[in-house]
C-alpha cells in the first residue's frame, strides 16, 4: 500500500510539474473582494462565492479584524466570534469548539490552511500553537458553523476553520512585527514577498514566540514538574507561477517547532507537549473548456512528544499524504457542478502503539448548485468515503484475543456525508438559509490502534487499548438562518437556529474508566453514546463611515447526553454540563486619523470541565466569567505602527477551563510595512 501511495503521490507531482497547460486559475481573493465589496470564499461549496451567497452559516474574519484584535494566537481571535467556545488551559494551550459539545482537544472541528489540513489525526485535534502561519500573512479566517464533510471529508463534523493567506502572485505582503510583554513575552514575525517575474510570486514567512508560563502552583505536584518556558516558531514558503493567463502552479513548504504545557485530551492531566511539523504541497489549476480543473497533493508530517513529569514520556510520528482533484464547471447559466476525487493515506508510529496503525481513504464527491432565480439557489453536495484500516505489530496479552492484525486489515468504514442549502434573498437586504447536513468524524489513529502498557504509579500496569470495531461518529444538523442588512445604521443582523444530533460519540481509552482484565487494568476506545443539541445565535455588527465599528451577539446551546459510560465510574464525558449554555460577545472600536482603538469582550456562563488527578477524573466547576481585551494602535505613517494590547483585563487571573488560571497580559508591538 505504501508503494502504491508513493507512486500515486509522485505521479501527481510529476503531472503537475510537466503539464502546466492542463491546470488552472485560482481565485484572486483581493480583486474579488474589491469588486463585490465583501469577502469571497470557497469554503462552503468548493466554488468561489460571495460570502453572503454561501449556503452555510459562515463568518469571515478579515485581516483588519485580526490586526485590530491585537491577538497573538488564532484562538484568541476566534474567542470573540459568536458561537465559538475557546478554552485556554495554559498560556499556549487552547481548544476551539463550535456550537457546543465542547471538549479538550476537540476532534470535531477541522482546521485547514489554504485548504491543507493542519488538524492532527493521531489524537484528532488541532495544535494551534504549532500552526505554521503568521498572523500578518493571513488574508482571512473562514469559519463555517455546522457540518461540512461533503466538501472537506472527515472531521468537519461541527464546523470548519479555513485560514486563507495572502496570494504571493497577486498580493505584495511585506511586514515585520516585534512584540514584547508581561510574563515576559518576546516574539515577532517577518513576511517578504518577491516577484522574480510578472507571472511568479514567492512569499517567505518566519516567526516565533516565547514567554513564561502562567502560574502552575494549582497543578498536582506529583504530575510535575511543569515546563515553564513555552515557545513556538515556524517557517513558510509559498510560491505561485502562472505559465499562461489561464493556468497556475503552486508549491508550498512549511515547518514548525513548539513546546508548551496542556492537556492531551478531554479531562487529561497537564503534560508537556512538543510538536515538530513539516509539510510539502504542490498544486495546479487551469481554466479550460472542461471547467476549472484543480489538483493538489501534499504531505504532512507531525512528530509529537508528550511528557508528564517523571511518569510518562512518549512520542509519535504521524504522516499523511493527500491527493485531491476536482473539476468545477457550469452547465448552462443556472447550474454549477463540482466533481471531486480524493485519496488520503494516514499512518502513525509511536510509543502508544505496538508498531504502526494507518488507513487509506478513498472519496468521491459531487456538488450541484442550482440558481433557480437570481434570488433563489439550491445547493446539494454529497460525498462518499471508503476507509480501509491497516496495522502492524504485536498485541498486549491483556488485549481482547479477537483483535488481530488480520481483523484490522479487513476493517473498513464506508460513510456518506451531505450538505444541502436553500438560499433565498427576497430583497437585496434579506437572506434566508435553510440548511441540512451530515458530517463525519473518523476515529483517531490512537482510538483505532493504541496499545500502551503504562506504569503510572498504580499498583498494576494499565493497558490503554485501541479498537478496530469503532464506528465513525456522525453529526446531523438542521438549521434556519436569517440575515438582514440595516443600511440605516450601517449594520448587519445575523441569526441562526439549529438542531444537531451526534451519534456514536468517540472516546479513546485514555478518557474512559479503567476495568480489570488478565491481571491488568484496562481501558479501551469506545463509541460512548449520542447527544442532542439545539441552539441559536443572534448578532448585530456594524461599521460606520465615521470610523466607528461595533458588534454584539448572543449564542445559546443546550445539550442532552445519552452516554453509555460514566454510570459506575466517573469519566470526563458530560456534554450536558460541559458546554457553556450562553455566551455574549461584544466589541466596539473607533478609528480616528492615525489612531485606532478597540475593545472586545465576552461573557460566558458557567460549565463543568474535568481534571485528571492521579487517574481520577475530577469535575471542576468553571464559574461564569467576563474577559476583556483592548488594543490601541498608532500609525506613525503608512509604514510604521505601534500598538499596545491588554488581554484578560477584568481580573488579574481567571480560570477559563481545566488547567491553570489565565493571567492578565500586556503586549506592545511595533510593525513595519515595506
Amino acid at each position, binding site marked *: 500500500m505504501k508503494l502504491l501511495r508513493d507512486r500515486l503521490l509522485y505521479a501527481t507531482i510529476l503531472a503537475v510539474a510537466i503539464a502546466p497547460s492542463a491546470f488552472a486559475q485560482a481565485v484572486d481573493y483581493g*480583486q474579488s473582494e474589491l469588486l463585490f*465589496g465583501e469577502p469571497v470564499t470557497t469554503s462552503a461549496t468548493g466554488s468561489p462565492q460571495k460570502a453572503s451567497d454561501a449556503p452555510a452559516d459562515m463568518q469571515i474574519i478579515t485581516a483588519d479584524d485580526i490586526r485590530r484584535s491585537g491577538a497573538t494566537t488564532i484562538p484568541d481571535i476566534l474567542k470573540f466570534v459568536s458561537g465559538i467556545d475557546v478554552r485556554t488551559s495554559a498560556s499556549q494551550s487552547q481548544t476551539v469548539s463550535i456550537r457546543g459539545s465542547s471538549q479538550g482537544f476537540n476532534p470535531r472541528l477541522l482546521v485547514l490552511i489554504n485548504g491543507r489540513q493542519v488538524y492532527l489525526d493521531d489524537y484528532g485535534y488541532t495544535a494551534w500553537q504549532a500552526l505554521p502561519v503568521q498572523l500578518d500573512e493571513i488574508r482571512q479566517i473562514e469559519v463555517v458553523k455546522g457540518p461540512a464533510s461533503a466538501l472537506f471529508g472527515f472531521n468537519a463534523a461541527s464546523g470548519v476553520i479555513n485560514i486563507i493567506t495572502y496570494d504571493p502572485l497577486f498580493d505584495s505582503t511585506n511586514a515585520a512585527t516585534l512584540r514584547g510583554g508581561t510574563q515576559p513575552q518576546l516574539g515577532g514575525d517577518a513576511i517578504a514577498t518577491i516577484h522574480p517575474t510578472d507571472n511568479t510570486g514567492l512569499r517567505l514567512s518566519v516567526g516565533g514566540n516565547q514567554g513564561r508560563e502562567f502560574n502552575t502552583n494549582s497543578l498536582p505536584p506529583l504530575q510535575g514538574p511543569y515546563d515553564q518556558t513555552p515557545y513556538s516558531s515556524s517557517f513558510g514558503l509559498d510560491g505561485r507561477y502562472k505559465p499562461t493567463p489561464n493556468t497556475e502552479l503552486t508549491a508550498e513548504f512549511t515547518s514548525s517547532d513548539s513546546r508548551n504545557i496542556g492537556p492531551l485530551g478531554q479531562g487529561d492531566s497537564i503534560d508537556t507537549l512538543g510538536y515538530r511539523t513539516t509539510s510539502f504541497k504542490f498544486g495546479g489549476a487551469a481554466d479550460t473548456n472542461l471547467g476549472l480543473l484543480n489538483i493538489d497533493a501534499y504531505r504532512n508530517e507531525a512528530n509529537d512528544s508528550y511528557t508528564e513529569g517523571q511518569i510518562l514520556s512518549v512520542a509519535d510520528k504521524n504522516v499523511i499524504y493527500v491527493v485531491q482533484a476536482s473539476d468545477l464547471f457550469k452547465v448552462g447559466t443556472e447550474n454549477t457542478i463540482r466533481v471531486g476525487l480524493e485519496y488520503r493515506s494516514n499512518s502513525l508510529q509511536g510509543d502508544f502503539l505496538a508498531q504502526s496503525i494507518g488507513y487509506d481513504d478513498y472519496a468521491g464527491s459531487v456538488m450541484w448548485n442550482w440558481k433557480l432565480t437570481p434570488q433563489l439557489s439550491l445547493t446539494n453536495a454529497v460525498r462518499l468515503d471508503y476507509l480501509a484500516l491497516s496495522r502492524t505489530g504485536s498485541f498486549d496479552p491483556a488485549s481482547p484475543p479477537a483483535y488481530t492484525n488480520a481483523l484490522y486489515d479487513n476493517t473498513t468504514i464506508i460513510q456518506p456525508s451531505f450538505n444541502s442549502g436553500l438560499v433565498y434573498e427576497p430583497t437585496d437586504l434579506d437572506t434566508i438559509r435553510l440548511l441540512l447536513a451530515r458530517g463525519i468524524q473518523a476515529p483517531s489513529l490512537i482510538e483505532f490502534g493504541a496499545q500502551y502498557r503504562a506504569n503510572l504509579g498504580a499498583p498494576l500496569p494499565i493497558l490503554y487499548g485501541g479498537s478496530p470495531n469503532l464506528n465513525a461518529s456522525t453529526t446531523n444538523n438542521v438549521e434556519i438562518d436569517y440575515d438582514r442588512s440595516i443600511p440605516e445604521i450601517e449594520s448587519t443582523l445575523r441569526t441562526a437556529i439549529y438542531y444537531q444530533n451526534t451519534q456514536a460519540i468517540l472516546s479513546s481509552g485514555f478518557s474512559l474508566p479503567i476495568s480489570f482484565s488478565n491481571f491488568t487494568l484496562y481501558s479501551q476506545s469506545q463509541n460512548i453514546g449520542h447527544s442532542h443539541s439545539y441552539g441559536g445565535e443572534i448578532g448585530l455588527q456594524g461599521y460606520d463611515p465615521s470610523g466607528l465599528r461595533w458588534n454584539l451577539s448572543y449564542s445559546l446551546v443546550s445539550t442532552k447526553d445519552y452516554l453509555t459510560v460514566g454510570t459506575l465510574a466517573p469519566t470526563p464525558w458530560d456534554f450536558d454540563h460541559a458546554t457553556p449554555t450562553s455566551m455574549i460577545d461584544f466589541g466596539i472600536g473607533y478609528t480616528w486619523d492615525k489612531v485606532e482603538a478597540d475593545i472586545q469582550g465576552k461573557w460566558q456562563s458557567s460549565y463543568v470541565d474535568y481534571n485528571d488527578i492521579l487517574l481520577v477524573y475530577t469535575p471542576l466547576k468553571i464559574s461564569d466569567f467576563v474577559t476583556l481585551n483592548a488594543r490601541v494602535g498608532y500609525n506613525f505613517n503608512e509604514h510604521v505602527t505601534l500598538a499596545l494590547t491588554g488581554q484578560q483585563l477584568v481580573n488579574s487571573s481567571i480560570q477559563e477551563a481545566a488547567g491553570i488560571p489565565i493571567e492578565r497580559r500586556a503586549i506592545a508591538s511595533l510593525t513595519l510595512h515595506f
Partner: protein
Amino acid sequence: MKISAAIIVFTTGIALSSPSLAAASQKDMQIAGRVLGFVSTPVTGDVKFGIVYDPANAGSNKEEQDLVALLGAGLKVGNVNFIPVPVPIDKLDTTASDVLFLTGGLGADGAKVGAAAKAKKEICITADIAATQAGNCALSIQSEPKVQITVNKAAADASGVSFSAAFKMMITEI
C-alpha cells in the same frame, strides 16, 4: 423549466423593492473598472469609455453628462483608466471606443447598442438591468445596497467577451 419559471415569478414578485432603473454612480464606475480585470483577456491601461446615450431622452442625456463630469479627464480604477467618450446612439458606428456603457431608459433603441457591441467585439456595461435582460448589453452592475453583477451569456458570446470561470461562479448569468 416550468418550475424555474414559476419560481422566478414568485420570487421576483416578492423582490419588487429592487430598483429596475438607476443612474450610474461613481461606485458603479469602480465596479465597471474592476470587472474588466475578470475578462478572459483583461483590459488594462487607457480605455475609451464610450457612453452611449440618446440626446432626445432627458434621462439618458442627464446620465451621460453626469458620467462625463464624473470621469473628468480620466478615472483610474484597478488596472484601467477610463477616458470618457460620449457616443450619441445614432453615431455608434462612427465613434471609436474600447468599452460601451449604455445609459438607462433607452428601451428598444438599446438593441442598436447590442448590435454595435457585437460588430465591434466590445463589452457593453450598463446600470440598467433591463437592458441586460433584454440582451442589449452583456453586463449590468448594481452597487447598492449590495454588489450584484448580471451577465447575459448570449450577448457576451455575441460580443466575443468571455470571463474567467471563477468570476462566472460569483455572478448571475442569464
